[in-house]
């Protein structure tokens, strides 16, 4: 738990007036606000620090205590504890110390775009002022806002993403059962309305945004709703034609190979690709790319026959 220099964070000196603090806060908040820096965790972290610094320095009472105990906050904590002990033993000397009066969410709800635990104060702040912050005097405007949005990531395999299935997510200690529709894409974000942080001053709850990460599959590569695969083809089937078995998402299918199929030929299996997101019964295509495998470790007899073929070809 390191000492945090709130003056340094806001870039003001210790004699700064309230107006200078307000101006410095707004300047920095405009630069690092999560609304203006979506998906930027660094900016979000920085914004938390700026908010925390402003929370203390814009409140004359908190600022006084911070100036008094700031650097030696550990002593302040011990001092507080001694005071509380004294209070408990009936001496009643001057009350509750640094505990804030409002709710944490009041402060937390003023921005969105968080990643779950954002908006919390540093442990330094909590040691000095208690876990619950009053949030008073920040801008003098007590408004209701919707709660902070939460961000979560969910990893799923390509095969799982091809079927509608249920998953249970734990967000902030709460289990949320979600149905993942078939066809979700890598990087796709799904919004669960009202599953974010509770709103401030009666405002609505924020939303939960889930980003899907789809892991690579050794068999298929996905592009949009189409799947691509490489399939080894033996020389004889490539030359003479025949029937082979292909793995698809819905099982194995038989595929006819034309005689004299060149290496690198791609053939399309219509409707055997990935399901189209939220369009039941619609599928992309599967593209099969043939990789002709040459026979190895030929016997003398085989070599002889190949020489004969060569002669025939060159004759």
């Amino acid at each position, binding site marked *: 738990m390191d000492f945090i220099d709130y003056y340094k964070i806001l870039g003001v000196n210790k004699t700064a007036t309230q107006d200078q603090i307000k101006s410095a806060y707004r300047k920095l*908040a405009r630069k690092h606000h999560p609304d203006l820096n979506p998906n930027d965790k660094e900016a979000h972290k920085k914004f938390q620090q700026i908010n925390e610094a402003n929370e203390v320095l814009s409140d004359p009472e908190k600022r006084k205590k911070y100036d008094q105990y700031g650097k030696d906050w550990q002593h302040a904590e011990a001092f507080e504890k001694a005071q509380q002990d004294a209070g408990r033993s009936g001496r009643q000397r001057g009350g509750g110390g640094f505990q804030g009066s409002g709710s944490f969410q009041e402060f937390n709800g003023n*921005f969105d775009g968080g990643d779950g635990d954002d908006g919390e104060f540093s442990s330094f702040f909590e040691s000095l002022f208690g876990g619950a912050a009053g949030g008073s005097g920040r801008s003098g405007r*007590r*408004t209701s*806002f919707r709660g902070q949005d939460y961000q979560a990531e969910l990893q799923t395999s390509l095969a799982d993403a091809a079927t509608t299935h249920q998953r249970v997510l734990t967000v902030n200690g709460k289990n949320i059962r979600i149905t993942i529709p078939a066809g979700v894409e890598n990087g796709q974000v799904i919004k669960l309305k009202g599953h974010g942080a509770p709103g401030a001053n009666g405002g609505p709850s924020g939303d939960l945004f889930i980003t899907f990460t789809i892991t690579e599959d050794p068999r298929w590569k996905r592009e949009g709703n189409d799947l691509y695969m*490489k399939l080894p083809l033996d020389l004889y089937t490539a030359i003479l034609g025949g029937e082979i078995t292909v793995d698809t998402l819905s099982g194995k299918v038989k595929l006819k190979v034309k005689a004299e199929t060149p290496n690198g030929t791609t053939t*399309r299996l219509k409707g055997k690709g990935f399901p189209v997101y939220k369009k039941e019964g619609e599928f992309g295509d599967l593209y099969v*790319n043939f990789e002709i495998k040459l026979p190895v470790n030929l016997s003398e007899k085989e070599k002889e026959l190949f020489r004969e073929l060569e002669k025939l070809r060159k004759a």
Partner: protein
Amino acid sequence: MQPEELIPAGEFCAFHHVELSFIQNLHESGLIGMTVRDGVVFLPADDLPALEKFTRWFYELDINPEGIEALSHVLNRMERLTEENKVLRNRLRRFTNGGTAEPGEMV
């Protein structure tokens, strides 16, 4: 088609302690929708998250309406580019780590 859900602007203003002129300003900039029925101003419910965001920018960050308009355009553009980047990255995945692209492939 589902009917549009509307919220009385006065209710939003009272709840968030904002002035109606601010909302009208945003509407004139084309950032939010607005409907007037029998002299009462209504806001589309779908625009509320954006309106709350603009309210934060205006009141908490001191960004003026012109700044809000400019920022909103830039952020929308950034969002579109991020989406495009995602699609291209997914396409690139097919060509990397043993992808199946072959020059001159026949379909």
